[in-house]
């Protein structure tokens, strides 16, 4: 009881101090860019009832929301909702978290954000895959979520090193596309599901949504007909009509460029993943039938190894394991050109003044002490250092290997 009381007093002091500072500096010009600034190691504090935190960890497979206070710098956001999140990354010892600022109060925002993700990085010993991969997507102008590493404290105790990741929601859509009224779907892969690679499953929208395309907006009326029509166009149109027909439904060049970035990053769980498609959002622009793809969760990037072929899972697997869209797209010289050119562009960016290697080294230096103190991570510090070294080697050599692969590939 005494321990509880002490904790309460300490937390109250922390909270009151933070609130006081908030009132004093409310006019400070902070925006979401500062929160996702990876130039420094961020620090986020959550105040949660200890029983709720224990419940969340014990029931980490559940999506139950708990009330919490969210504290960043001198800002305190009361009554946010937090819950366990993730698919393969769900953890009871270091739970991945979703923070919804508007869970209990629809009008509540923080720095213009409705929600964000605190990624636990438990599938990656370096805890760098996601951040480095998203940096490359952003360098290529792809609409990638912003993120930064963060020391997370729960009730004043260090809970581990996390990544604070911008949620893909209406706020993200408005920021990147200048609109948020379209249809946003999260590709929802469950390991128990049969892999999906854009095969045509028939004209019924229910064959495509809510699984695998889980509606994030327009949940009550997900209108997946354009997805069904896109799958039909991918499968049934002639080579001559393919690009025109599919372009009615998908920003094809963007999709191919996205696949190329993932190929450069030796991703094993993306558009051309080992278990079918995974880890992306699809956004259909409002008032149109055309969608674009948004990257998500790059914890499995770099895992195919520095020598992975750029045609991995394209032409080196049985036909039944090939992505229907990628197969057709690569038969189109223009799209094949986009794919190869994007790979070369990735190589150029990566090698430009050692940019990729520099990013790995800078990020590793930034988080090293936080990793050393992270008792909840499922990897040892030695495993962290070994994986960082592997990433440095990858960054150093990948451009050369990809350029040679592209050179050998017919246009």
């Amino acid at each position, binding site marked *: 009881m005494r321990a*509880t009381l002490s*904790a309460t007093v300490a937390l109250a002091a922390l909270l009151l101090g933070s609130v006081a500072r908030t009132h004093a500096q409310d006019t400070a010009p902070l925006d979401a860019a500062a929160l996702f600034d990876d130039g420094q190691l961020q620090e986020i504090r959550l105040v949660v009832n*200890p*029983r709720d935190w224990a419940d969340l960890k014990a029931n980490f497979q559940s999506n139950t929301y708990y009330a919490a206070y969210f504290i960043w710098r001198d800002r305190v956001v009361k*009554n946010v909702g937090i819950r366990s999140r993730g698919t393969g990354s769900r953890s009871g010892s270091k739970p991945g978290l979703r923070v919804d600022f508007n869970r209990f109060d629809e009008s509540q925002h923080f720095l213009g954000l409705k929600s964000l993700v605190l990624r636990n990085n438990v599938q990656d010993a370096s805890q760098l895959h996601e951040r480095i991969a998203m940096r490359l997507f952003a360098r290529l102008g792809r609409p990638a979520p912003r993120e930064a590493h963060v020391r997370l404290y729960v009730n004043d105790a260090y809970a581990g090193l996390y990544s604070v990741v911008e949620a893909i929601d209406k706020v993200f859509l408005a920021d990147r596309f200048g609109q948020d009224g379209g249809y946003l779907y999260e590709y929802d892969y469950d390991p128990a599901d049969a892999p999906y690679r854009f095969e045509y499953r028939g004209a019924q929208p229910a064959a495509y949504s809510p699984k695998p395309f889980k509606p994030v907006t327009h949940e009550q009326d997900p209108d997946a007909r354009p997805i069904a029509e896109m799958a039909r166009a991918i499968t049934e149109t002639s080579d001559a009509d393919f690009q025109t027909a599919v372009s009615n439904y998908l920003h094809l060049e963007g999709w191919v460029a996205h696949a190329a970035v993932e190929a450069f990053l030796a991703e094993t769980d993306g558009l051309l993943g080992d278990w079918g498609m995974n880890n992306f959002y699809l956004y259909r622009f409002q008032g149109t039938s055309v969608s674009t793809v948004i990257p998500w969760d790059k914890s499995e990037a770099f895992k195919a190894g520095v020598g992975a072929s750029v045609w991995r899972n394209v032409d080196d697997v049985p036909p039944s394991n090939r992505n229907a869209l990628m197969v057709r797209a690569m038969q189109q010289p223009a799209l094949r050109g986009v794919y190869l050119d994007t790979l070369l562009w990735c190589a150029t960016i990566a090698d430009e003044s050692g940019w990729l290697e520099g990013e790995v080294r800078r990020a590793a230096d930034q988080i090293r002490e936080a990793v050393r103190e992270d008792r909840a991570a499922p990897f040892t510090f030695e495993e962290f250092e070994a994986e960082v070294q592997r990433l440095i080697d990858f960054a150093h050599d990948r451009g050369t290997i990809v350029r040679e692969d592209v050179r050998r590939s017919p246009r």
Partner: protein
Amino acid sequence: MTRGLPVLIGTLLAAAWSTTAAAQSLRIGEAIRIEPKARVDVDFRAAEVDDGDVDVDLARRRVGVSGRVTRHLEFEVEREVDGTGRWRDVFADVRATRAIGVRAGHFKVPFSREQLTGAGDLDFIDRSRAADLLAPGRSVGLLVHGRVARRIVGYDVGTFVGDGTRSRLPGPESAEPTVAARVTVRPRGGPRRAGAIGDVEIGVAAATSELRDGRASFRGRLTSSDQFFSPVLVSGRRLRVGGDLDWRPGPFGVRGEFLRADDARQHQGLMGETLAPLRAQGWYVSGVWAVAGRSAHARANDGFAVQGLAGLELAARVEQFSLGTPGAPAAQIWTPRAEQLSTVTDRAWTLGVNWTLNRLVRIQANAVRERVTDRSRIAAPGHAVWSPVARVQVAM
């Protein structure tokens, strides 16, 4: 409606079975009598999806047995046969004199008049929100009861292992000891008799429970089961108080009840601080008119022969039920650990027709109009909702 066919067939079979079984009260001499019991209630409600369809629901399926051994020992055993297999009443009642009896087992905690009224004797298909949501349920306990002071005053005082309401916590409810007492007064004493004063009964009740840490509070649900107030986390004392009046002079009857429950929220704040208690309270006033008179209705209710319209009743009820923290300002943000909770109120009117065909079959039809007033902005929209519902009861 297509989904209702198997249900209706089951109901008819149950009716046939119960008709037969009804004649089979087992008597062993004068001392022992055993009566089988069965009940099937079939509800017809407007489907949640507004497609003109009707949901048919087997609201109750129960079997049991009751009886007595000599004048001093009564017993009852009843169980759900709906797949849950839950035991309902399992108790023995020893009555030494009219002034004192002792009941032990699993049975209703004495508190609300309406909650203590059996499903077959209710004037409406659904109990009032207050009685349904606030009154204790069944629990294992020991009860002392009787009538004293020339039978003017009746009393029930009991101690129970729980209050019979659901907790979100795993494990048995044994950690929530409950003490309940109910006192009723009949001004003329003795059994209830027709007449202005002879048929009135007034009751007051109180119950206190010790809630486990992190237990879910009362919730707010409409008659349709839609939730309008999500439970919060509570701990500490739950104190219920209530009062009621039942008056049935001649063909008309009036019943009213007020119930209140305060749930402590000790150490339930975000930082373990104690929060303002949650108060749930409600009342109802209802009237019923036996169209052909009380005696004709009683005949229909007692015999096997169908009595035509003799068993027809018209009923109406007005009620209110609210949850919140006393004195909380409007538009507080709801969380399970919110410091204060703005009051959310459900007001309802119910109009009903009850037709008792005979002692076995009763048909009820209700129209319920509900409106939720939500000061915290998180509940259902504030427009009024009409919910038609009908029930066929087959019981013995």
